[in-house]
């Protein structure tokens, strides 16, 4: 009887456990637009921190712009937006004025003055450089010092008197001046156009088209047709030559004659608001060079063909992403370079690689490689350092870089660092104090073509040290604070507003606006919501040491989102500083923040011990003394009795 019962119970337990095991925990694959990750790495729905406020296409900027073709880069300075329209070999400059996007101009060629051409050993003097597959642009405000410095030292050139440049007033002067330059140059250009094609090998990248044939964003044809290396050389004077060449810019050259100014301002531009003191760096990728020019598109220097012992002789320089820091160093992320970022000094000479990854083999890999024969080694996977794919500069001059060549397993395991912050020594100083490393999605499934880990392709750092990473895999943007906590993620793969199919780049327009450019030519504008602003303000208050004010804002955040762990930590921190240890513990426990909880608990424990130590010691004393006392009294009584 007992045996049967026992057997039944055993079988029941077995069955239940088996069934339970098979049922398991089917993780809900929720698909919210905005979400955060909780302590358990579960996606938790979140209110939107950013909302889509606009979706723009090239045609929105006017007929002359037309559709964007695979725009690879985006750069925003003040209210100027530079869209690198790679497929059309141009850069479209747009301005946001009163909430409206207006075309400023289309940049597709740049001027090289005679003096500079001489120094660069370009025979035939002044020329025009056209862009070929540019992938990035970097613009910075020129300081008065850098202005003098640049013109004095860059490539050893002084192509223009810096003094006269400073006197320049915007637009009008600029056009006339460059116009003059072009007429001068025209003469020389006619000579060299025919003869120099072959002889300019050392500057193979710099094709010499007659400078003015190019001109103006207004003649759309020229914009589109320009650019291939072969289609060089037609100039307004020798139009006969031009037609013989059979190049498509015949029409453009006519236009050029009538409007010789290389910069044609769009009528919309609010001229007086333009700051001409910009430095523009253009990664002219397919021409293997980085061009440095001023805002009027006069070339200051060209960086191409870096020479160094560490660089292979047949290395092909394909600058993809560029950044110039305040010390005038230029950082270039070049395609197919996995030794880190290429660093150039202010005269355009290659200094070194910067921020290279270390390759670390695991023990088993080391042993395995020792056993392998040479042939096997050659055929096995090469252990190469990861290649960066983008970089950006924060307000304090630190570089943020992203890479997407990491193993999915590493990201899943939480040890990958696809986004890094590099100091001037090139070492990673990104703070990763969150529950997990900033690496995009923490868990993911496969849905059709969308599979694998997040692939960061761009990063922007805001003034308060929060940063946003753009994930190409799922078209998402991840926001992280200065401690590495994830603030929010939003976006998705798709065709509707706020989703991307192949996001290429993003940048911030001011502190509250993010623009993302997709391969298919759309530009999505996100604007911070009230909720996002609250989080931002709370972080800002905390950073400057206003902990109580920060906690007040976090309380408001909790009204929007009761699942926001950071808010609990924020409030807990304020309570901890106020000495409300028990309350603080409660908040830290809600967020499962064991470090802060321990801090609060330590104080709380002290408090409790201090409070009750008297009672405790008293009790102990009584426990020790009482038996003795009892014994003594007994003894005494005994003695008395005996006596």
């Amino acid at each position, binding site marked *: 009887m007992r045996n049967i019962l026992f057997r039944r119970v055993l079988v029941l*337990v077995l069955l239940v*456990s088996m069934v*339970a095991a*098979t049922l398991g925990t089917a993780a809900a694959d929720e698909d919210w637009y905005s979400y955060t990750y909780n302590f358990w790495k579960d996606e938790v729905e979140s209110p939107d921190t950013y909302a889509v406020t606009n979706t723009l296409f090239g045609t929105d900027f006017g007929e002359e712009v037309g559709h964007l073709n695979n725009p690879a880069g985006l750069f925003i300075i003040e209210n100027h937006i530079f869209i690198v329209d790679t497929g059309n070999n141009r850069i479209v400059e747009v301005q946001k004025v009163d909430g409206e996007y207006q075309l400023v101009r289309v940049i597709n060629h740049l001027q090289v003055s005679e003096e500079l051409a001489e120094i660069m050993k370009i025979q035939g003097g002044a020329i025009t450089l056209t862009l070929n597959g540019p992938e990035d642009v970097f613009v910075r405000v020129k300081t008065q010092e850098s202005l003098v410095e640049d013109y004095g030292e860059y490539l050893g050139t002084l192509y223009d008197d810096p003094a006269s440049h400073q006197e320049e007033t915007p637009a009008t002067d600029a056009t006339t001046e460059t116009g003059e330059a072009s007429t001068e140059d025209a003469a020389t250009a006619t000579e060299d156009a025919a003869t120099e094609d072959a002889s300019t090998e050392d500057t193979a990248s710099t094709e010499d088209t007659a400078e003015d044939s190019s001109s103006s964003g207004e003649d759309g044809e020229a914009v589109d047709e320009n650019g291939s290396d072969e289609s060089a050389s037609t100039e307004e004077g020798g139009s006969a030559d031009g037609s013989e060449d059979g190049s498509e810019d015949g029409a453009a050259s006519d236009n050029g004659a009538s409007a010789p100014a290389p910069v044609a301002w769009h009528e919309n531009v609010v001229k007086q608001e333009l700051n001409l003191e910009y430095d523009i760096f253009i990664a002219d990728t397919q021409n293997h060079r980085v061009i440095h020019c001023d805002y009027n598109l006069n070339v200051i220097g060209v960086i191409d063909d870096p020479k160094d012992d560490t660089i292979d002789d047949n290395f092909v320089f394909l600058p993809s992403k560029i950044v110039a820091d305040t010390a005038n160093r230029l950082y270039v992320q070049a395609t197919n370079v996995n030794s880190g970022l290429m660093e150039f000094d202010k005269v355009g000479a290659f200094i070194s690689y910067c921020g290279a990854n270390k390759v670390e083999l695991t023990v088993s890999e080391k042993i395995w490689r020792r056993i392998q024969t040479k042939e096997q080694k050659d055929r096995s996977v090469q252990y190469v350092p990861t290649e960066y794919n983008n970089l950006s500069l924060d307000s304090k001059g630190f570089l943020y870089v992203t890479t997407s060549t990491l193993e999915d397993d590493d990201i899943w395991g939480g040890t990958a660092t696809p986004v890094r912050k590099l100091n001037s020594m090139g070492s990673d100083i990104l703070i990763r104090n969150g529950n997990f490393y900033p690496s995009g999605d923490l868990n993911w499934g496969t849905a059709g073509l969308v599979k694998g880990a997040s692939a960061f392709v761009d990063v922007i750092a805001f003034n308060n040290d929060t940063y946003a990473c753009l994930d190409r895999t799922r078209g998402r943007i991840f926001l992280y604070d200065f401690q590495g906590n994830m603030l929010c993620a939003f976006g998705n793969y798709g065709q509707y507003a706020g989703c991307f199919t192949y996001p290429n780049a993003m940048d911030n327009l001011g502190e509250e606006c993010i623009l993302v450019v997709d391969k298919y030519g759309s530009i999505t504008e996100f604007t911070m919501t009230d909720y996002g602003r609250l989080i931002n303000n709370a972080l800002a208050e905390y950073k400057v040491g206003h902990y109580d004010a920060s906690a007040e804002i976090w309380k408001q955040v909790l009204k929007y989102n009761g699942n926001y762990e950071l808010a609990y930590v924020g409030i807990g921190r304020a309570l901890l500083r106020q000495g409300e240890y028990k309350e603080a513990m409660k908040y830290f426990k809600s967020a499962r923040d*064991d470090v802060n909880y*321990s801090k609060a608990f330590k104080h709380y*424990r002290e408090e409790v011990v201090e409070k009750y130590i008297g009672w405790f010691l008293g009790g102990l004393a009584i426990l020790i003394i009482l038996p003795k006392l009892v014994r003594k009294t007994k003894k005494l009584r005994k003695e008395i009795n005996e006596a």
Partner: protein
Amino acid sequence: MKAISGIGRFFVGIPAYFKGESFKHYLKTLRYAFYVILHPFDGFWDLSHEKRGSLAAANTIVILALLTNLWDMRFTSFMFNNTRWNRVNIFEVIASILLPLAIWVAANWSLTTLMDGKGKLKDIYIATAYAFTPYVIIGMPMIVISNLITSEEGAFYTYFNTFALIWSVMLILAGMMMTHDYGLAKGLVSSLLSVVGMAIIIFILLLFFSLISDAIGYVVSLVKEITFRVS
């Protein structure tokens, strides 16, 4: 009426039981666990050969071990405790201790009968159960202590829990040696082989269950098909 009187007699029996000889024996065998964990060789020898242990005490220790495990999940400070209660299946937790124990006992018995082991199934079970004692007597206080320490002092917590586990494993080894009257080498080998045996048993069980579920699935789909055709 008969049932009621039965229940009545049962309750009347309770105080009598606690005063009875068998209860005293139970307490004595339970108390003997403390002797066993401190003098493993001597203790385990007497446990099986001198009948100083009892099945009731062994069951008690196993239940206490289960409780330790559950309370550890429930009451340990969150700093050292990553239990997600919305994903916990209590039967699974219980089975995750009871099943390996049962399989261990079965595997060990199957093996040692072939290796001249002196222990019976019951002896193996009792010895294994008694070896859980350190896990209980260290684990239980650590649950309380975990709530009194900070995360920096967590090393202390981890150290004691690891210590308890190692102690328990050593005790199982000593228990097997004494129960089966083995030397150290044979004890080690038989224990290791028992672990292999456990893996084989689990494999066969899984195979069995998957075949059964396939068979059930077949019948279910057959029935569905027929009902679909009929209606």
